[in-house]
């Protein structure tokens, strides 16, 4: 009972926090802080959240309700986010375990290169990919992917672009984690039993490492969300973040924040539940 109550309390507080953050644009009028207009904005946001049909946006002077378009934007953003996450996870896992088969000096070089790649801003990667696709098209007249969406949504290239930086992050994280696991006692035991290096790596270290990566799922997702904004704007996608970027009103901001918060919290809670089931304890 106590746990249920505290859970409800947490949900309510998170909800209030979202409204307070979403209404922040009302706090500043030009560069001056205005408490009164902040309270008015909060009131307006609450009213619009309870009567969703009042939320509107306007393009070229025509005011429309945000329904039902917002849900197609929302699903597009979520598809990009979770596909990107899965692609990054799968490719990084394959690469990391492939890397571990190389000799130690090679691994050190790969680690150094990954460290450098991690500090490249996401915008640079997106621009380079767009320019690359354009120049391939100019040279060979084959269009690999659509790089800009006008009417229909594009998926392949945004997902790939979105997956690059988190992929590098997971890749490096995995290599460090595999090295740390390699020092543990169960590996010593397995070695003393005469198991080969590949068996230990793929059967025993693999499972433990994947669980460890899932404990970092929240860091990776928050990082991806920031990338998603840049990807959506750069590809002119029909995504929710791009939509909020173009029509920035407090009620829309709050609504979008809640729309992102709910599935992500659910996903992260599932991850934690899974980890608890598998390991019997919550780490990190």
């Amino acid at each position: 009972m106590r746990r249920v109550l505290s859970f409800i309390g947490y949900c309510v507080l998170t909800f209030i926090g979202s409204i307070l953050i979403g209404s922040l644009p009302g706090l500043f009028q030009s560069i001056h802080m205005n408490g009164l207009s902040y309270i008015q904005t909060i009131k307006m946001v609450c009213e619009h959240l309870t009567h969703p049909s009042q939320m509107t946006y306007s393009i070229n002077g025509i005011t429309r309700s945000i329904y039902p378009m917002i849900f197609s934007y929302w699903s597009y953003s979520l598809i990009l986010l979770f596909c990107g996450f899965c692609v990054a996870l799968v490719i990084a896992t394959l690469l990391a375990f492939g890397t571990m088969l190389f000799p130690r000096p090679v691994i050190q070089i790969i680690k150094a290169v990954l460290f450098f790649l991690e500090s490249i801003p996401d915008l640079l990667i997106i621009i380079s990919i767009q320019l690359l696709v354009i120049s391939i098209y100019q040279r060979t007249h084959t269009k690999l992917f659509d790089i800009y969406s006008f009417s229909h949504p594009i998926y392949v290239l945004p997902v790939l672009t979105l997956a690059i930086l988190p992929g590098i992050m997971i890749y490096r994280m995995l290599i460090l984690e595999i090295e740390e696991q390699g020092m543990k006692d169960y590996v010593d035991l397995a070695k003393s039993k005469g198991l080969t290096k590949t068996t230990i790596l793929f059967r025993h270290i693999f499972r433990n490492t994947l669980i460890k990566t899932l404990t970092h799922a929240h860091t990776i997702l928050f990082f991806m969300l920031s990338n998603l904004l840049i990807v959506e704007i750069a590809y002119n996608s029909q995504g929710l973040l791009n939509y909020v970027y173009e029509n920035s009103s407090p009620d829309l901001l709050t609504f979008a924040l809640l729309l992102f918060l709910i599935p992500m919290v659910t996903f992260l809670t599932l991850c934690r539940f899974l980890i608890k089931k598998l390991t019997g304890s919550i780490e990190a």
Partner: protein
Amino acid sequence: MIMTGPKIKEKGLSLKKGVIMQVLRNKKMWMSLVFIAGLLVVSFLFEGNSGQVTKLIWKNGELIGSAPFSPAQLPPFGTDELGNNMLDLLFKGAKFTIGIAVIAALIRLVFSVFIGVGLTLFPKWVQNGITRLCSPFYYLPVSLLTYILLVSVLFSSHSLEPKFSATISQRMIFELLLLSFIGVPTLLVYFKDITRQLLVEEHIVGSRVLGASPIAILRRHIWLGIKSRVVVQFVEQIIQVLILLVHLGMFQLLFGGTIIYLTPFDQKPPVYFSISSEWSGMIGSGYHDLTLYPWLALDPLIAFAILIFAFSLLREGLKESQNRWSTTKNKPQARLKQLVRISTNPSIPPEDFQPTQKQFEEVG
């Protein structure tokens, strides 16, 4: 007759060991510091001198090109539309970019450390409540929120005469404060969590049992515990602000204000101009003709990548040197293994706690 155990070494950067020695010992640290310092020095030397301007290139009495020149025509970085060498512009803007990042990171840290650590004095439900109120900040890209808050202040109205709602110094201070405070809520929760982990450690519990007041504990023990993390977080926050600046540059929100020139007669897209010569401004003004002159946006982006790399090298170096001093000269993992083995085998006391001859004499 007081038993004096071996003095516990301070964690992190201790002045006794000599900060300079620590920096010199770590290759990553001094290399990145030399790079950043060198960039700053060159940047300040470039103040009055904007470099040479190349508007047209002549060859054998024939005109072969006009600005902007690509990096191939005028190495290493090409020129902008006015013929200024991009390398000069990058050097000129470096001090602003680094300055903004350092100041914003400093403000972020000061506030979040004070509030985060101070929060642990309050009852647990207050702490949890504030954590929950701050948690939605994670689910919204920081750059989007910053954009929405800044857009009314930094964009000039669409007219031939640029009009802003505030003066330039007001705009700059407002943007700097916003860049700082937008990062405080998440950082505050981080420091609060660390402090709470430290508060249950044995030496702090012991000191509380002996009657130390909460404030004294925060001042004496907690500060020692979090000092090294504050230094690492400082560098980390500089990187975060730099990334935020890249994003704002893409949104055409240039530091100090964006002047939008709408060309009313033909159907050209608006032209954006930066007021300061700072790097994210260069991205913003180069972003709109990316396919025509890609180097205009790519040059500052590459510069950002190198600067961020230098700072992350510094962060890694700091972490390494702290591990070195806080444990022993052995590798941390090997050391941990050794300790675990000792503690699971009660017949062997850990070597650190073997009393020396002197202590035996003191005990008498």
